[in-house]
């Protein structure tokens, strides 16, 4: 049962083989067993989870169950949950009990899913290793000496270690896809505007997007059916008709045009990662897909563009943490200005402070045009490259990350080295495109490798279908981490 897919769990609940209370107890037990070693969860409230499970069982008995009713789902601690600690991995919010629910939390509650707990993450989602959390680093279930990726590393580790059948994440520059790749699970960053950002603590508002993490593309589709859709409370939420994200799961691969950008297969990527990705692409070619060589010449500028736009927006968004309305407040201060300065210096960790300073710099008088405006212009050049590419192909494939999971502490002192982990994942959020990471093999050290699939705007169902075909004939996504056997 720990290893079952969402549709298998749904079937078992429907047949009465298992109750939601039993299922929730099973996963709570697994969390109790493993969380001490992995630190994937910040908050677990067993009583609350079991209460929701009892309600789900009652709802099923009353004949009102949906596909996810009674299934436990873990949420990244960036989603506000009413009456529950919501920390965003920061000392600033270490005491913050949210007075309201995020839209995504409301959606899962309405579907009858059980909130299993809140997962650990890089502070304010700023990081690629889940080491910047105030609550300590998350460990990778495949090798506890390595990072799980970030920033949604707690969700990724929880799904990989079978502590949760599914989880939510958020992705600004790769924070769903890179940890999915590092832990051998699947993660989808939807098109910007498809999942409401209401109640999802803001990092970089023009890039942030919530999405699902699970062990298969089919599971992601079921989760997207709950998470996606318009919400008037997010001004960037798109007004589109509801979609069934499972609708292309059975679409044949014949005739699929796979774009291979030469920039994704060059230097700077571990040879073993490239080898696994090329093997996966050859699998698609053998089943009738056509390979299209193409170029994304401006993608080399994506890293500098991202590290202007994201810190700029972050410095603005994080100005709300003032020690007045919620969160941490310093105890010693001389006056109001001093209270702000000390509260923020104490409440934010080093990486968050660094990004606030960079963002303040690129937005400051005399530098705005040279950095922020210029970055927005180059962002358009990057988006244009993708628009041209999607005239010639249906899906772009390449590695999710240039390496497999690295050792804890390996990159903490060198921010630029850490940022290079995002080189293949940052382009999709800049262009607003959906992108998916699925496991496609292992390196010699036994660490998972991720294959990234990027689609045109609103191509989530297509990406999930392509990935599902692959997963029907491969078992990389079913492998259980050696460190956390069933």
């Amino acid at each position, binding site marked *: 049962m720990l290893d079952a897919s969402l549709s298998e769990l749904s079937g078992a609940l429907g047949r009465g083989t298992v109750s939601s209370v039993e299922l929730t107890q099973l996963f709570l037990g697994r969390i109790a067993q493993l969380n001490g070693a992995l630190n994937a969860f910040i908050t677990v409230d067993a009583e609350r989870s079991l209460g929701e499970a009892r309600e789900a069982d009652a709802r099923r008995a009353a004949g009102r169950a949906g596909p996810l009713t009674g299934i436990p789902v873990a949420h990244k601690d960036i989603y506000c949950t009413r009456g529950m600690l919501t920390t965003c991995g920061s000392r600033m919010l270490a*005491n*913050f*009990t949210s*007075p309201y629910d995020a839209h995504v939390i409301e959606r899962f509650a309405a579907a009858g899913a059980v909130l299993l707990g809140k997962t650990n993450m890089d502070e304010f989602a700023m990081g690629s290793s889940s080491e910047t959390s105030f609550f300590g680093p998350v460990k990778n279930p495949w090798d506890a000496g390595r990072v799980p990726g970030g920033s949604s590393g707690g969700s990724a580790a929880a799904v990989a270690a079978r502590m949760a059948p599914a989880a939510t994440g958020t992705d600004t520059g790769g924070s769903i896809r890179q940890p999915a790749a590092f832990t051998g699970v699947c993660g989808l960053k939807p*098109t*910007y505007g498809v999942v409401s950002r209401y109640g999802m603590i803001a990092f970089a508002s*023009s890039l942030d997007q919530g999405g699902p993490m699970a062990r298969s593309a089919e599971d992601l589709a079921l989760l997207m059916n709950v998470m996606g859709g318009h919400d*008037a409370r997010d*001004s*960037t939420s*798109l*007004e589109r008709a509801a979609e069934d994200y499972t609708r292309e799961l059975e679409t044949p691969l014949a005739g699929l045009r796979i774009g291979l950008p030469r920039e994704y297969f060059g230097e700077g990527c571990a040879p073993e990662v490239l080898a696994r990705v090329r093997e996966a692409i050859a699998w698609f070619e053998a089943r009738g897909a056509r390979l299209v060589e193409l170029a994304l010449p401006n993608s080399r*500028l994506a890293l*500098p563009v991202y*590290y*202007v736009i994201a810190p700029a927006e972050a*410095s603005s968004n994080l*100005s709300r943490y*003032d*020690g*007045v*309305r*919620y969160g941490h*407040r310093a105890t010693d201060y001389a*006056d*109001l200005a*001093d209270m702000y*300065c*000390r509260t*923020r*210096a104490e409440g*934010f960790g080093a990486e968050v*402070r*660094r990004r*606030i*300073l*960079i963002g*303040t*710099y*690129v937005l*400051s008088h005399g530098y705005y045009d*040279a*950095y922020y*405006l*210029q*970055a*927005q*212009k*180059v962002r*358009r*050049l990057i*988006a244009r490259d993708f628009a041209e590419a999607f005239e010639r192909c249906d899906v772009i494939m390449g590695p999710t990350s240039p390496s497999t999971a690295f050792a804890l502490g390996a990159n903490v002192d*060198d*921010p*630029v080295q850490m*940022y290079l982990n995002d080189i293949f994942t940052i382009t999709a*959020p*800049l*262009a*607003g495109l959906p992108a998916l990471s699925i496991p496609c093999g292992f390196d010699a050290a036994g660490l998972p490798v991720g294959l990234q699939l990027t689609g045109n705007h609103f191509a989530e169902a297509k990406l999930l279908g392509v990935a599902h075909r692959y997963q029907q004939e491969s078992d990389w996504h079913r492998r259980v981490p050696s460190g956390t056997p069933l």
Partner: protein
Amino acid sequence: MPLSPEQIQHLARLARLAVSPAQAGEARAQLNGVLKLIDELRAVDTAGVEPMSHAVAAQAAAGQRLRADEVTEPDRHAEFQAVAPAVERGLYLVPKVIE
């Protein structure tokens, strides 16, 4: 263009972040590394390119959605103030600003 320790203190003031001289020294090398990375942008020819402020063109074209000017939220100030560091009689308390 590398930042001087004075510039870092100035940015910290703008960002309302207390930064000690020791922290500023430590931050300087790392910030300058990041600035070197983003300085690559300055050489790119972007003449005639419109800045992209929204990721999805359709949304950018539609502009900001406006809602009707109606009261939609109930009064929940007690709940919201329950998480504030210091509150008295429904007011947020801060250090005295005007003598």
